Each structure stands twice: as structure tokens, then as C-alpha cells.
């Protein structure tokens, strides 16, 4: 059974996603953006519903709504009378609620929608065509991350210092948000919108104790992510557990294992 082609496709898809979510996840952890990841993921449901409604590619819908959420976040943050935390809570749950409402409306109009697949992923159903798209998206996102790495890192350390040193902070932040939106759009199929943030944060957190530099942490986060995908897929095959949650659960187990390593 292990030789079935769909399993290889699922493994490949999962691995492609964690190669990108590793470095992005590190930045999310450094900049305390995990709630933003959630908001983007929730927005992805709305984006998908919109795409279905207007007969677009889901990826396009997700990126448009993700960009909109990022823009709303930035403009609401500028007013400074609400914390980012509260603003994200509003946007995140607002997006989730409207996504669920829209999905229900579409369903009542006779559209066949598997809501569970969006919420919890459907890695076993990925096609070769999807994998090609995924690979292209991953290469593009990774290329941007590598190119902007120094700037992203400067901003993570101290935004104003970075700005004073000539880093185009606003532009880099905007690009980073769009990269996150792309990742969310492609990872939705793998672990579902509910668990995307887990894939960002947990491997990065596991990597921390083994890393002495930011770059090493990013690479190790990828390694932890790859192990999580393999373990999760294996568990899913062996015990017939849902694939997405099994991958996340594996990541959690690896995280606790990583805590066994003493702090240097």
C-alpha cells in the first residue's frame, strides 16, 4: 500500500510546503506574528468562497483577500488606539465568520463544497497538476525570502533601527505579508486553514534550541517540518488517522522531544 502513487504525491506536497513554512515560520515566531498567520488562514476561507462565487482560481481569491486583510491591518494599526492583538482578533474572526457564511450560502445554492477539506486539509487528494503549482509557488516565495532575508531580519530585530539604516520597511513588510498569503493559499490543501499556523510555528519553535544563528534556525525548522510530514503521513497510513492533523501532531511531539535538549 505504501507504494500507492497518491501517497507519494501527498508526501511531496507536504515537503514542498514545509520547505517554505520553515523560514517564514521563524520570522513569524521572531516577530510575534502567529496571530497574523491565523488571520491570514481564516481569510483564506473567505478568499476561497469568493473565488468559487466568481469562478476564479481559489489561489487568486486567497491572495486578494489576504492582501486586503494585510492592508486593513496596516491601516488600523496606524491609528494606534487599538492594539494589534485586538485588531487581528477582529479581522481574523470577521474573516472566518464571513467565510463560513459565504460557504453556506454557496452550498444552499447547490454548489458542492467539502467544508471539512478546507478546514482540515485534504492532502491525500492532491493531483500532479496541483504539485506543479505548489512547486512554482514555493520556488517564488523562497526566492523572495532569500533576497529579502537581511532586511526581514533587520526589521525583526528593531524596526526603527532598520528604517534608519535605509531598509524599505513598509515595502518589505508588505511583500512578506503577500508571501504569507501565498503560502497559506497553497498550504490550505495540506493541513487546512485551522492548522496552518501550527505548521509555521511549531517547527520553528522546535528548531530554536538547536540553532545558534537565524539562518540555522530557518534550515532546522525545515528539517523538523520534513520529519513531521513523514511521521504524520506514516501515522495516517498506519492507523488511518486524518493526514493534516497527524502531521501537526507529529510536529508537536517533535517539539516536546526538542525540549529534552538542555539549554546551552
Amino acid at each position, binding site marked *: 500500500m505504501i507504494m500507492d502513487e497518491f501517497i507519494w504525491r501527498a508526501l511531496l506536497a507536504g515537503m514542498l510546503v514545509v520547505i517554505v513554512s520553515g523560514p517564514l515560520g521563524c520570522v513569524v515566531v*521572531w516577530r510575534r506574528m502567529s496571530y497574523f498567520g491565523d488571520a491570514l488562514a481564516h481569510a483564506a476561507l473567505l478568499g476561497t468562497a469568493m473565488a468559487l462565487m466568481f469562478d476564479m482560481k481559489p489561489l487568486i481569491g486567497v491572495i486578494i483577500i489576504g492582501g486586503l486583510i494585510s492592508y486593513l491591518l496596516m491601516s488600523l494599526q496606524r491609528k494606534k488606539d487599538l492594539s494589534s492583538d485586538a485588531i487581528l482578533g477582529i479581522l481574523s474572526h470577521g474573516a472566518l465568520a464571513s467565510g463560513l457564511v459565504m460557504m453556506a450560502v454557496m452550498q444552499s445554492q447547490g454548489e458542492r463544497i467539502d467544508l471539512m477539506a478546507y478546514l482540515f486539509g485534504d492532502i491525500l487528494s492532491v493531483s500532479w497538476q496541483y504539485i506543479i503549482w505548489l512547486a512554482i509557488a514555493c520556488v517564488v516565495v523562497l526566492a523572495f525570502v532569500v533576497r529579502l532575508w537581511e532586511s526581514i531580519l533587520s526589521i525583526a*530585530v528593531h524596526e526603527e*533601527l532598520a528604517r*534608519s*539604516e535605509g*531598509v524599505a520597511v513598509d515595502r518589505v513588510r508588505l511583500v512578506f505579508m503577500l508571501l504569507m498569503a501565498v503560502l497559506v493559499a497553497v498550504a490550505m490543501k495540506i493541513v487546512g486553514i485551522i492548522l496552518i499556523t501550527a505548521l509555521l510555528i511549531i517547527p520553528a519553535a522546535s528548531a*530554536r534550541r538547536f*540553532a545558534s544563528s537565524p539562518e540555522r534556525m530557518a534550515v532546522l525548522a525545515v528539517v523538523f517540518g520534513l520529519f513531521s510530514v513523514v511521521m504524520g503521513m506514516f501515522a495516517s497510513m498506519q492507523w488511518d488517522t486524518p493526514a493534516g492533523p497527524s502531521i501537526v501532531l507529529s510536529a508537536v511531539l517533535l517539539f516536546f522531544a526538542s525540549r529534552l535538549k538542555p539549554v546551552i
Partner: protein
Amino acid sequence: MNSFLIKAEHIGLQINQRQILDNISLTINPGEILTLIGPNGSGKTSLVRVLLGLLETKQGSLQKKDQLVIGYMPQKFHIDAVLPMSVLRFLQMGNKLTPDEIQTTASSLGIASLLAQPVQSVSGGEFQRVLLTRALLRKPDLLVLDEPAQGVDINGQQQLYQLISKIRDDYGCGVLMVSHDLHLVMEATDQVLCLNTHICCTGHPEAVSKHPEYLKLFGSSLDGMAVYTHNHDHSHDFAADSDVPNCSSCEKNPLQKAHDHDHG
């Protein structure tokens, strides 16, 4: 001749209907140390941020020398432990120097032995030197130091100010420094600008320390006091200094005792 590094004319800044800065004009020349002093909330940091271009204002004009390179040392900040980063890696950000070049500058500031350590593990005083090194590595025309002696004990503070004047001599750069204790920076500064939303007084440190506006802000009992024996039996009440001329804008917030520096 425009030999100045920065020339600000009639700068004003208003945030939420509150006047933060009012009619500030100043010039910083190469090789000159200008110290901004003033009580908390007097607009020192806001003025620095305006001069750095981090904060925009429509009031007044700001001219900078062409291709002005600024080395900025922000107020003491915290790098989260979740970001693995050595002092060396921190110093490599924002420039393209080799470890050898960084080593040389780090040695001259006495932090060469810290380079391999995690940046979170260095002490407050050491971290201030690390920040200063990072600012210097940019080979700046102008050093901007916001409360450089923060978190440094009093002996360390004097050393730090001596170091800053030595840097000025060695590098020939202009220095803009924020402080709230004139007596400590007195020897290290050429010009003092006493700020309390508007410019209270400006000039050579000796002159400023005897200026009635300064005394009104900081209390006449400070005058002539030795650095190490800071008595606390004096009064900080402005109203007690009734013999000094009135300055209405200084007294708009009588509850805010100007004398709020740290005696730790």
C-alpha cells in the same frame, strides 16, 4: 557655505492635537557634539525621530547634507530570546563588512571578546557599546545617540561619554546625543540644547547650566553639585524657584517634575 550635516528650521510637531515640538531650529556641524537635554516628555526622542526621518512633520524645514550617512543608536532595546543571534551577526546587519573589519572596530570599543556570545547574554553597558559599534560600522557622518548611557552605572557612564568624545575626535563625525543629565555630559559636549517642547535655552554647556530657564527646569539646587554625591534633601518644586523669570510654556504641566533622572 553649507558645511552643516543637518539644519532644522522652525520644526514643529503635533500629534493628536498635542504640540510635541514647537519652533525648533538647530544646526549640527561636522565634528561637533550637540546634546539635547530636557525632562521626560519634553520631546527629545520625537525631535531625534524627526531629524532621522522616522517621523514626518509638516511644520518647518529640514535640510540634510547630500548622502548623509547616519549611525543611529536607539534607546536600549530588547532582542527576544527566540531569535538566535551572536553579537557578531548583529553587527553584520546593515553593512557588508567582513568579520575582520568588524573585529577591528569592536576591539577599539572594547567588545571584541563578546563577538561570539549570544546578543541577549551581554550586560546593559556592554550592549550599549555593541549598539555604538553597529552605528560606527556604517562609517557615519553623524552619530545619533538616544540616551546612550541608559542602564549603565555612573562610572560606566563617564567612560561612555569619554568614549563618545574620543570617537568624535577619531572619526570626525558630528554627534547628536540625548541625555537627561547635563552634568554628566558636560565635558563631552560642545553645545547643549535644553528642550521642553520649545527650545528653552541653548549654548555652551557651562552657559546652559547657569541659564535661568535651565535652572527652572532642573532646579537650582543641582548647580555645582558633584556627580558622586547626589543629595536628596533638595526640593524639585519649580514654584520654589520663584526668583527665576517665567516661561509660560515650561509650566504648562506643573505636576510633571522635571527632575526625574535615575539615581540608581
